[in-house]
């Protein structure tokens, strides 16, 4: 109900080229999702889509700061994280359309996008299930003596499932390199999360496990970047897990087809005013970017994404035989069927 807190600006001198890159990334994420939603209306996407429109600062402020060889686990609402980690938008769009050449060959869809090439170990269709998996990926990193870290993103609804506790406890007990990120958009599907959550939430729960935690304005790119940078440095230096609790808002319904009638219009309007992309644009303008420059970037991003979308639409379906591939090494999956 409360608007995003106005976080103090941490960066006094702005790195404008860097910020422009993140601005473009946020625009790409939004264009990707807007086009995916349109394509769903046209019948190209049969499965569910969970847009992250309004939450792009988390992707840009957190995920984009990972090294390529760092690992990341995401959720059902993971397009932004995945693009920020460096996955290919065309492969992702194809995946949403269930086509050959999709990140998972069309077998996963939006909720199971993964791109192991860039360290993206998967969205997950089961809320909170990615948390123990992230802890385990970090466990492997520690066993192998590497300096990589794992970022694990989850929603505010995820902190009420047991794996949240088990995974955080695990990461702390073994002092593993995990950055936990609670992307708190105030809702779990149609339920206002605060109504089903005891206590102040993710950060407090992490702190009860001696995991350092910080609560942030999740629509403030610079604040997120700065906190993430500090957290990653501490984690990479062997300091064990940390948690960032990022308060943001979902501008759409839970899925692309949810009208989200359960939210007061004023609340939505308030958050619309805190749009993270508009906020970055304002920063850039303060820093000297003209609105022409920004509009041109936006137009280019949109056009590129439209081409990607068209290309995905033109992509072939996977061959039927793929249904029987990549099940497992042992045994014939066709045995006794039909």
């Amino acid at each position, binding site marked *: 109900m409360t608007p995003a807190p106005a976080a103090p600006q941490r960066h006094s001198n702005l790195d404008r080229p860097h910020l422009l890159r993140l601005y473009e990334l946020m625009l790409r994420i939004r264009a990707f999702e807007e086009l995916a939603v349109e394509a769903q209306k046209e019948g190209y*996407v*049969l*499965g*569910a889509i969970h847009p992250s429109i309004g939450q792009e600062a988390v992707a840009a402020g957190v995920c984009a700061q990972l090294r390529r060889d760092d690992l990341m686990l995401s959720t059902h609402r993971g397009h932004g994280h995945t693009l920020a980690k460096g996955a290919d938008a065309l492969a992702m769009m194809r*995946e949403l359309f*269930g*086509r050959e050449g*999709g990140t*998972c*060959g*069309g*077998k*996963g*869809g939006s*909720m*199971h996008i993964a791109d192991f090439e860039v360290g993206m170990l998967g969205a*997950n*269709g*089961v*809320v*909170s299930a990615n948390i123990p998996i992230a802890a385990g990926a970090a466990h492997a990193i520690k066993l192998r003596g590497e300096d990589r870290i794992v970022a694990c993103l989850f929603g505010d*609804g*995820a902190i*009420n*499932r*047991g794996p949240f506790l088990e995974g955080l406890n695990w990461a702390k007990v073994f002092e593993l390199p995990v950055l936990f990120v609670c992307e708190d958009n105030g809702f*779990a*599907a*149609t*339920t206002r999360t605060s*109504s*089903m*959550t005891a206590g102040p939430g993710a950060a407090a729960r992490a702190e009860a496990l001696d995991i350092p935690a910080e609560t942030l304005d999740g629509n403030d790119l610079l604040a997120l970047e700065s906190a993430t940078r500090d957290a990653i440095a501490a984690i990479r230096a062997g300091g064990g897990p940390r948690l960032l609790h990022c308060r943001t808002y979902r501008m759409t319904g839970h899925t692309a087809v949810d009208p989200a009638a*359960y939210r007061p219009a004023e609340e939505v309007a308030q958050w619309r005013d805190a749009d993270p992309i508009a906020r970055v644009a304002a920063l850039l303008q303060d820093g000297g970017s003209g609105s022409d420059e920004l509009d041109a970037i936006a137009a280019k991003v949109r056009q590129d994404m439209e081409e990607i979308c068209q290309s995905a639409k033109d992509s072939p*379906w*996977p061959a*039927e035989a*793929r*249904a*029987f591939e990549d*099940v497992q090494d042992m*045994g014939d*999956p*066709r*045995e*006794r*069927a*039909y």
Partner: protein
Amino acid sequence: MAAITYLEAGRRALAEEMRRDPSVWAVGEDLGRGGVFGQYKSLADEFGPARISDAPISEACIMGASVGAAMSGTRPVVEMRFSDFALCAVDELVNQAAKARYMFGGQTKVPLVVRQPMGMWRSSAAQHSQSLEAWYVHIPGLVVVAPATPADNLGLLKSAIRCDDPVVYLEHKNLWTLEGEVPEDEHLTPLGVAETVREGRDVTLVTWSAQRWACLEAAETLSAEGIEAEVIDLRTLWPWDRDRVLASVEKTGRLLVVQEAVSVAGFGAEIAASVAEALHKRLAAPVKRLGAPRVPVSYAPPLEARVRVTAEAIVAAAREQITPAAA
């Protein structure tokens, strides 16, 4: 009689039982706003948020708390959203709900109904498409129900709510919008009783849940060819209506079990094995199962479709049972 949807039938069943018995309540994520598929729409208006209760995303606790509430004088209806998420609550269902009465020497019963929307539906992919009825049939203490029609979703859900055993209640997501005639008066479908949906002399198709409709379609096609298939919708998988199935196969001499689930170690194996054990001599053809291959369900429509048991596959299998292709 009035035609209502399968979804609406479930909603009516719950509303009727909640009116009838104040100890009945429902709990699950988003129920206050109607539930993920709208099965609970406006029920909170009539019954209030305590009896149509929201829940945190805590499947284990939704199930576990319902076990405690069921042992303490209430009758919870537990919404799992997708049957796949019930896998987050297996200890609570299998080690606790199913065993409490027995372990405690009959001191308590656990009258709860776990609604688990199941099955393949519109590119839902591997974590939102499973049909795991075989698991629950294997667990002592559980009743397992899988309605295929609006009338049965009304009558079976009401019976499930009145049952003192923990009931795993598997609605099929692909049937939500199916319309069908439903009695306007109170309608109870007894647990454990199959429905012979179509009579026939040549082959017995045993099925449940959404595959009922594929079987009926296949039976039409077969009938046009002069093959009369008897179609039995089991409706309840435990206890399953063994007598009905055996009597039918006794008559037809042939059994084809049709299931959406993975065939290997699926519930169809239980039926096929039981019939083979009981009626070996009477069988004019080997028992046969149709089911999915042993692969997770894909997202891409053509791959998803590839693992469905279609009416055509049923027709082909039935034909083959009646006139085996030359070896």
